[in-house]
């Protein structure tokens, strides 16, 4: 297999794998062979027939809990990522289109928020508000500024492109140009950005759950499982390894998918000679 074919295979398999993992994470509860919350055997039992990954600290089925444990985490993270991406995109459209003082003040506000780690934000907010609110606020504060910068630069470049000038000459309203001309041209960029926000949201959400400030026991939750089963790692390592691998594969695949979207977006800009191109894609 030559190199080009290998690259194509890799960039095709990542989206498929990511779709599969997301489907299992979101709908896995329906496939769990046992109840994820009922004790079925002695604590820390090793793998046995019927219990492929053994039992956890309270004797519950690890395999069923892994299948059921991604839904809540992903649901919260997706909500947070969409919020961050929408707010950042709207801010970026406004900043990139109007430029000048509007752009400078929006960017300055965004830069201020960037200075603090998202997790610290989430911890402080989690004192008083429910954990999903904390995840959303932390993801928006830590993610929307980055989205804003990316979208702003792309919009600034698109302003002088042919299709936008044509729309301007047709006398179209600003909102309609932004919504119908500029935004569709940036869908690859925004999709990639949504993926990156989702990764950070998952990191924050899983951190809160691991700290015991997130999903409440006995809910099956990958991050909570890490916390519950850490002490028994020498007796049944699967109880820690399985949720860790599930969470790890999900985040890594999402990040790689975002990377592929970015590369594809840049490659298509090279092909279409889009003036929004700032960096050349590699070969």
């Amino acid at each position, binding site marked *: 297999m030559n190199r080009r074919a290998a*690259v194509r295979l*890799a960039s095709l398999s990542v989206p498929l794998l990511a779709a599969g993992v997301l489907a299992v994470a979101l709908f896995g509860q329906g496939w769990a062979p046992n109840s994820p919350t009922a004790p079925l055997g002695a604590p820390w039992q090793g793998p046995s027939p019927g219990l492929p990954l053994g039992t956890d600290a309270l004797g519950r089925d690890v395999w069923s809990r892994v299948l059921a444990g991604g839904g809540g985490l992903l649901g919260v993270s997706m909500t947070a990522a969409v919020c961050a991406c929408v707010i950042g995109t709207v801010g970026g459209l406004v900043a990139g289109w109007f430029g000048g003082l509007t752009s400078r003040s929006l960017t300055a506000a965004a*830069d*201020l928020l*960037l*200075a*603090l*780690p*998202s*997790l*610290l*934000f989430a*911890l*402080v*907010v989690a*004192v*008083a*508000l429910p954990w999903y609110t904390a995840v959303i606020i932390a993801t928006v504060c830590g993610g929307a500024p*980055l*989205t804003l*910068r*990316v979208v702003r*630069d792309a919009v600034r470049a698109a302003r002088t492109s042919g299709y936008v000038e044509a729309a301007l000459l047709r006398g179209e309203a600003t909102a309609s140009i932004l919504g119908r001309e500029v935004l569709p041209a940036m869908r690859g960029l925004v999709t*990639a*950005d949504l993926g*990156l926000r989702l990764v950070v949201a*998952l*990191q924050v959400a*899983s*951190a809160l759950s*691991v*700290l*015991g*400030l997130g999903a409440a026991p006995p809910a099956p939750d990958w*991050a909570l499982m*890490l916390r519950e089963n*850490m*002490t028994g*790692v*020498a007796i049944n*390592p699967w109880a*820690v*390894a399985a*949720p*860790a691998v599930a*969470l*790890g594969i999900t*985040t*890594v695949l*999402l*990040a*790689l998918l*975002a*990377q592929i979207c*970015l*590369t594809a977006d*840049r490659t298509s800009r090279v092909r279409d000679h889009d003036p929004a191109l700032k*960096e050349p*894609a*590699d070969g």
Partner: protein
Amino acid sequence: MSRPRTVPAVVHLRAPGTAAGASFLFALARTVFLLALVSVVVFTSTELLPGDAADLRATPGADQDQVRALRDELGLNAAPWRRYLDWAAALLTGDLGTSLVNGRPVADALAQRLPATLTVVGGALAVAAPTSVALAWWAGGSGRAKRVSTALLTGGAALPTAVTAAILVTVFSGALGLVPPVSLLPPGAEPWQHPELLFLPVMALALPTAFYGASLLAGAVSDTMCLPHVADARRRGVPPWRIAATDVLPFLLAPFTRVTAVTGGGLIAAAALVETLFGYPGIGSLLVSSIASRDLPVVQATAVLAAAVVLIGLLAGDLVAALTEPRRRWLA
């Protein structure tokens, strides 16, 4: 393609062409403003909780009048902004308050746990900084394997800290049995007397930081490798190690400083996670346990101090970066 275009924005906070002095004043103003903002957020967040210190401190069975008297005595009836100013003024003069749970001064609890956190965060930085440079060098300089190295850095940076910690525990404690799965310090022991307890927390903090730092730095490495003087030196046949030492590394000093400041801030937040996970008695686990027990004075003081350390680190990073940045006007 180097990195996602979102990433260098964090590293190059300073606008190109601004004078170093003006930029430093601006950065200082930003730090003070952000610290004030953080203190407001922390105070508001703790204000949102139902019940107040009077409810918590009143002896069980106390009637409404007694609670009201206690509330007067503690100054809880004043307007919120008034109480915020009092609290912030006390914080600035070094009075961090007393814990609601055990009545001990917060400053004592922080001072007692500070060495443990410094040890683990310092150890993580010492591991992460050289590792991230090596990884960035490999990813930014490699020609053919660029896609593989980029994918590896992207994946490594995406891995949640808790997952890294869990994998390390499963391998080194579960499978190999080399180190204990929890890092509880024996009473009275100093953390550095027990390196076997430090291994897991330090590595769990250092690895994600190294990958994230490398993914931020790789773009700067590959940009520097493309500079005219580097290509020129290469054509003149200067040995690669000399090009690295004299032509490339000086240009990486400023981005490296900024990346270290940014990732160091992340380390302080991640320490809360890692310390709690391993039962290691540091300031991070103190913050988390006091959030869980709603011990507000401890939460307020710890969160503001952590934010202050992060922001001062960023400021110091900005200053050092501004001083070490070679003239790179031709890049702009």
